[in-house]
């Protein structure tokens, strides 16, 4: 097991290198460069050449990438071309926002999907099943930003500003600098709508998936055996059936991480949250190469680490799955 984890951790390296290198190449082929927006109205060809030399943008792309990588292994994520701020510092300020958003939306998804999926499967073809599947069908068909708009309409505008429509208040203890405001209540009111906007779609998807795999599992012989030996319905469902039915659900949850990161960009934009999503999209649009690299790096890291965690969850759900 330990060697397996170690090997998987080593595999992270090529994946992260691959993703960051491709992003590097792609960003460099985007028309326009950050020097143009940096110089603004005072742009002259001479200054531009000087500025490009200063940031090393005149070197060949591969050399630039190697320089970036060389700094990275020494813990230096570079500094933003436009603001001059260290990228790592910016990423660390924004990470807790997105992390909280994604974790809470995943929690929303599970809290809705597990009971709904189980009820749908156990009461197949009853009104409970029909309503669960209908709501799930609607849920998978609404984009996150539209759910967000509907929530805004009800809770921010309809209820006279009951929940704030934008901005962020940090959870006490998560604020990485001295300047940000933090309060528990403030945090809850700011995170609720974004977390639901992002979580409802995932909930719908997982409900459909869990219902389908529960239906498959409860028809297997070992579940019949468990029932035949007089086991109560509760342990049959939760200990025997659910654990096996969760395996495909967990796989998809892992695959959904990519979507959650994208969804975070959308939801953070809609609710004007200072998270990694808005950081990334702003950096990409401003062509701030260093910030984009930082964003790609943290995204790639999150992606591979979560996929590793998903694979390790299998061993808990099904002890027959062993990694060596």
């Amino acid at each position, binding site marked *: 097991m330990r060697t397996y984890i170690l090997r998987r951790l080593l595999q992270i390296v090529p*994946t992260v290198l*691959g*993703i960051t290198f*491709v*992003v590097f190449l*792609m*960003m460099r*082929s*985007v*028309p326009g460069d950050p020097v143009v927006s940096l110089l603004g109205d005072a742009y002259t060809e001479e200054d531009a050449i000087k500025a490009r030399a200063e940031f090393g943008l005149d070197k060949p792309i591969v050399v630039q990438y190697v320089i970036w990588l060389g700094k990275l292994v020494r813990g230096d994520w570079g500094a933003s071309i436009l603001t001059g701020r260290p990228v790592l510092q910016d990423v660390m300020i924004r990470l807790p926002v997105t992390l909280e958003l994604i974790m809470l939306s995943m929690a929303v998804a599970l809290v809705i999907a597990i009971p709904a999926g189980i009820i749908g499967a156990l009461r197949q073809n009853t009104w409970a099943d029909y309503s669960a599947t209908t709501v799930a*069908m*609607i849920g*998978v*068909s*609404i*984009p*996150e*930003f*539209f759910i967000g*708009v*509907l929530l*805004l*309409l009800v809770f921010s*505008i309809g209820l006279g500003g009951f929940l704030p429509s934008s901005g962020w208040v940090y959870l006490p203890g998560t604020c990485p600098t001295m300047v940000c405001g933090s309060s528990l209540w403030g945090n809850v009111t700011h995170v609720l709508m974004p977390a639901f906007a992002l979580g409802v779609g995932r909930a719908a*998807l997982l409900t*459909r*998936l869990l219902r*389908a795999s529960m*239906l498959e599992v409860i028809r297997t012989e070992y579940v019949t055996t468990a029932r035949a030996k007089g086991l109560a319905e509760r342990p049959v469902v939760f200990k025997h059936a659910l654990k096996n039915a969760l395996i*495909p659900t967990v*796989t*998809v949850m892992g*695959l959904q*991480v*990519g*979507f959650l*990161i*994208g*969804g975070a*960009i*959308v939801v953070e*934009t*809609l609710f004007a949250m200072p998270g990694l999503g808005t950081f*990334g*999209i702003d950096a*990409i*649009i401003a*062509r701030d190469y260093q910030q984009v690299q930082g964003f*790609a790096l943290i*995204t*790639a890291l999150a*992606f591979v680490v979560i996929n590793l965690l998903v694979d390790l969850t299998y061993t808990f759900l099904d002890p027959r799955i062993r990694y060596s």
Partner: protein
Amino acid sequence: MGEAELRSVDRVGWVGGRARRSESPFAEAVHRLRKSTTALIGVGIVVLLVLVAIFADALAPQSPIASNQAQTFQRPSWEHPLGTDQLGRDMLSRIIYGTRISLAVGVSSVLLALFVGVPFGMIAGFYGGRIDTGIMRVMDLILAFPIYLLAIILMVMFTPTAGLIGTMKVTGAIAIVRIPIYARLVRGSVLSIKEKEFIEACRALGVRDYSILFRHVLPNCLAPIIVTTTLGIATSIIVEATLSFLGLGTQPPTPSWGWDLKANIAFIQANAWLSLFPGLAIFVTVLGFNLFGDGLRDALDPRLK
């Protein structure tokens, strides 16, 4: 990616339902599809939307891009059933024309991904070895990206523009992101089909490789491809709307639902309907393709219920 797509990606050798009696598998699938009310609702929505897109010129009461400073922010009325936006443009007309962008991008991006991804998947699965490793490494690299990150950077690379060219750029970006889904799906099916006896028989008869691939292997992995495509259109429409929402889709003045929704959020306090209608349009379209795709999956693979 919808979960049905994921399932079919996972499902190696997912061959369509076997025919009972003398009915062809196709006729049987159509029969099953017609029995499902939800699938028929989906088909109905899709057909209706296609008609709206084709006859947009005749259906739209006004031009979707003609602004009218005297009639900004009109509430829904007889003259403007869905009201007007900040430039006085008729919202109903914008929604009707938006159908074109949404459907065009949704359908053509998936077809483009299909025409590139399927041959790659077939070649990788059929020949195996180095060819397989080479193709699948590239596909895995694309899949290793969170798809929105890739789509966003691709769109920034292509620089979003308006009109037909702008729509083609969005189509291309979404297609690139979706190619590996088909490649993996088809490769999986081919791997199991090529071990079947009838393929061995073809080889023994001296049938050429491409003829084996296209006439014997491909028809046997069509069912998952069809289902993935229908559900994929739904996903692509959401991705298009999301890119537009982020300002990276087809640019104004070309009417696009995602863009309209985003642009009107600024006025949501007083004019909520302006964001509601484009959102509803996206929702209904995606729902239509999802219902249709679900029905198709049940019809083509009776084992999945």
